[in-house]
């Protein structure tokens, strides 16, 4: 029986947050209003997505103060808890791509790792920069014009309409196309959170002594390049691309992985 602790915690967080957003529109609650672009917590704490804010700013108009303060608060928060914790603990697309990934493993769709020439893990950083450039050229927040993340979120809150096709497309792409294609290669929001969370304090730590080299963690990890230390060194996962999802901790039968507070002075 595999441990599902962090997986269930994550699903509870994701679904819980989505429900709070949904309830604002449906029942008039005031706990979490708005969408990821900009939200209000408890009716007065502004929150805003840093990358969305950057796009709007690079498109050339000044934004209201609430959004700027909100983007700052979110940036500081994810600097501490790990940037891509957003991806695995909050983003609703994560449930779609995790499902695609799980099916991929069950259907044994990837026997060998495919190396795409122009679709690397770093492609998302290019897309992130390109998104800001396109925003400046066209004069609207470019990624927001097609972001499956907020399309899905607004779909949950206000109804999907034809927007559901974008979510299905991501699912199909990740299932039959590229493994971890969207979250791991393309999504510029994830790229931005990778950068924000570079020096985050909460990290997964590996204990080399306990490891039996079964590689279950690498199989389940959506960003397994960050687990380069497995069975080599007892260090923390310091790569910003780690989503702090904790699946590696769940599947490890040897207690060789666990969340820890990173020592800032050592910075290994």
């Amino acid at each position, binding site marked *: 029986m595999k441990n599902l602790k962090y997986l269930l915690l994550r699903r509870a967080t994701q679904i819980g947050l989505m429900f709070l957003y949904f309830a604002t529109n449906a029942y008039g609650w005031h706990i979490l209003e708005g969408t990821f672009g900009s939200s209000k917590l408890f009716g007065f704490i502004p929150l805003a997505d840093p990358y969305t804010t950057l796009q709007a700013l690079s498109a050339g108009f000044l934004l209201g103060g609430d959004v700027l303060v909100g983007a700052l608060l979110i940036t500081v928060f994810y600097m501490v808890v790990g940037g891509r914790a957003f991806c695995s603990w909050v983003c609703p697309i994560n449930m779609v791509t995790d499902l695609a990934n799980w099916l991929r493993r069950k259907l044994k769709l990837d026997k060998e790792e495919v190396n795409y020439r122009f679709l690397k893990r770093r492609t998302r950083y290019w897309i992130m920069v390109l998104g800001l450039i396109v925003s400046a050229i066209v004069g609207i927040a470019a990624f927001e*014009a097609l972001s499956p993340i907020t399309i899905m979120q607004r779909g949950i809150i206000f109804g999907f309409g034809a927007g559901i096709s974008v979510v299905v497309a991501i699912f199909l792409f990740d299932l039959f196309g590229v493994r971890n294609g969207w979250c791991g290669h393309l999504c510029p929001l994830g790229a931005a959170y990778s950068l924000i969370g570079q020096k985050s304090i909460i990290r997964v730590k590996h204990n080399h002594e306990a490891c039996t080299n079964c590689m279950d963690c690498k199989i389940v990890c959506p960003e397994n390049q960050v687990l380069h230390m497995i069975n080599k060194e007892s260090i923390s996962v310091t790569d910003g691309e780690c989503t702090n999802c904790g699946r590696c901790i769940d599947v490890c039968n040897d207690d060789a992985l666990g969340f820890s507070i990173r020592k800032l002075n050592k910075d290994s």
Partner: protein
Amino acid sequence: MANSDNNRRKFMATTLQSVGLTALGGMLWSGYCDEAKASPLVLRPPGALPEEQFLDVCIKCGLCAEACANRESNKNKDGTQREGTLKMAKGGNHKLIGTPFFIPTEVPCYMCDDIPCVPVCPSEALDMKSLLNEKKELDINKAEMGLAIVHKESCVAFWGLQCDACYRACPLLDEAITLDYQKNERTGKHAFLLPVVHSDVCTGCGLCEKACITEKPAIFVLPREHSMGRAGDHYVKGWDEKDQQRAGDRKLDEIETHDERSQQAPSDYLNKEIEY
């Protein structure tokens, strides 16, 4: 030596390909965004910045739509919530995804006194300042969401039938829409009651469009830049003292126009076929 040359060639080729693909992606993405924002006939919430600016500044959070749907006045008699005016554009709406808009024939804007949709806007895409009156109070009558126009051929009041549905539905009764009484020459004994919209008062709430009795509304709201003409600066209302000031102190005979035609005597050019 040959090997390093080969490596350099490979590196150059890869770089060139990356740059090319990035440019391709950027162009496709820009093209998509440019098309996506081209939805000119869309009605925005009160206080919205000019469309071009609005599309950027709007952070697509939906707080306005939530405030609109959940306002106190938006309840049925049995306490259940009604559909809000503001909708968030989704795939298939053919409007920039995630931006708020409304369709008068579905749910018009009821012009709430407290304007719940505007103060919640975190990015100031809905500009509260534009809705303040002289006393610095929020005043929905200052909204310029659109402007109603009447298609007189399909409006039955212009046929001589009695209908003043739009006039009665207007929240600015007898100000934004007035009735123009005219004699019906066809019958000789009836009156036309013709609706006339006044663009300086109309907010574009769409209640008239919703109330209109014709199959497809004969009175409808369009964004102001689409339902308004512009005379241009060079027309001066000489009878209007204030407008006349734009012409300065100049007398009529001081104002001379110099162009190709003014170089010649009228007797020369009026008798010839000259194209200007």
